[in-house]
């Protein structure tokens, strides 16, 4: 059976979907991805759908599921390379693909992942709670 290849780029997994996704293939991809996230400790997943002419509700739900599963495993998912025609069709059909982050191309997808990670780390100190907690050990060490 065909499988969609999953490439490792540093701590990001890159999946480029080149063929029409059928039920079996989609389920296999979902399994492969979650295995790989755990085994490589990846922090981000990029799914490239440049080659897809049609994104229907099935593919949409699969993308949402992958995003949710990755989120549970602490990896952000970004869908990249959606074609204009696909986007127009999805809007006309009223399928907004909730819960999926998107970027124009792989490059911007990587940037988005990097930015989210920086923000995630910056958050504790930004809202004031992280700051004192971080300073506390230093204060204990000093005397």
């Amino acid at each position, binding site marked *: 059976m065909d499988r969609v290849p999953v490439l490792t780029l540093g701590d990001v997994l890159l999946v480029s979907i080149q063929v029409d996704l059928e039920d079996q293939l989609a389920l296999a991809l979902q399994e492969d991805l979650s295995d790989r996230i755990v085994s490589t400790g990846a922090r981000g997943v990029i799914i490239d759908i440049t080659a897809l002419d049609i994104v229907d509700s099935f593919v949409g739900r699969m993308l949402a599921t992958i995003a949710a599963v990755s989120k549970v495993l602490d990896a952000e998912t970004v*869908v990249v390379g*959606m074609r204009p025609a*696909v986007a*127009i069709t999805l*809007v006309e059909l009223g399928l907004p693909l909730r819960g999926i*982050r*998107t970027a124009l*191309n792989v490059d911007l*997808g990587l940037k988005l992942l990097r930015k989210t990670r920086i923000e995630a780390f910056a958050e504790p100190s930004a809202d004031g709670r992280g700051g004192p907690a971080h300073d506390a050990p230093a204060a204990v060490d000093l005397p």
Partner: protein
Amino acid sequence: MDTETSARLSAVMVARRDAVLEKWTGSVRETMRGRLTKTELTRQLEDIYDALASAFGAGALTAESPAAADLLGLIADLSRLRARHGFTATETAISVFALKDALLDELDDSNATRLNDFVEFSLFVDKLGLHTFETYVNARDAVITEQSEQLLELSTPVVKLWDGVVAVPLIGTLDSARSQVVMERLLQMLVETGSPYAILDITGVPAVDTQVAQHILKTVMAAQLMGAQCIISGIRPQIAQTIVSLGIEFGEIVTKANLSDALQYALRASGVEIARPATRPATRPAL
């Protein structure tokens, strides 16, 4: 029309050519009010007259007969030309119908067939008149189609404002066809330039109703699906009031009052800092 009538008409037209042509040209010229030079008009009418005379000579009994094909071609050319030059339908039709009056005076009074000939001639010219109308309307339609296509091309430019920021200044009423073109152009441009920010400037849109808002929202959602953020700018006070009173929800879409604010937002969001150069101390050498 029978062959004898057409032969008689042909004979009259050849014999009285100059007199009829002068009358015809004269009455057509009155309606043209100097928008066409006399030489040009005379040449056009002469061509048609001669074609008509030879059609009768060749035994054309109706306007559809093969002998009249040349004549119909000339008439079609004439009305196309008139349509392109902005003459009205009446002015164009008179160019043909005036021939009836011109010929009537020249028909032989003493001849018993005069009435019959004129009626037949009149029917023939009526056919030509219908053909004129047909061509005129078609030519006008072609002009309108061409122009609306050109308008569509002209009115939807996608411009790059900054590295990673593109803008579409929308001008004029947004209908389904136009918004479709705008949407496709914008999304294509996003892919080509890899710009994560797009600004839809609606300063030039005269009114926003639910339909227009729907189109704008669809464009914004499609751009978001592709991974770009859309900012709507150029919302005039009246339009803002209309939007609110119509109950249109823009939700999380960023809206700005003018293009400059939108650009500033996009730049800030993409991490570009804008600063005025600090006032420099007078480093210039004194003259």
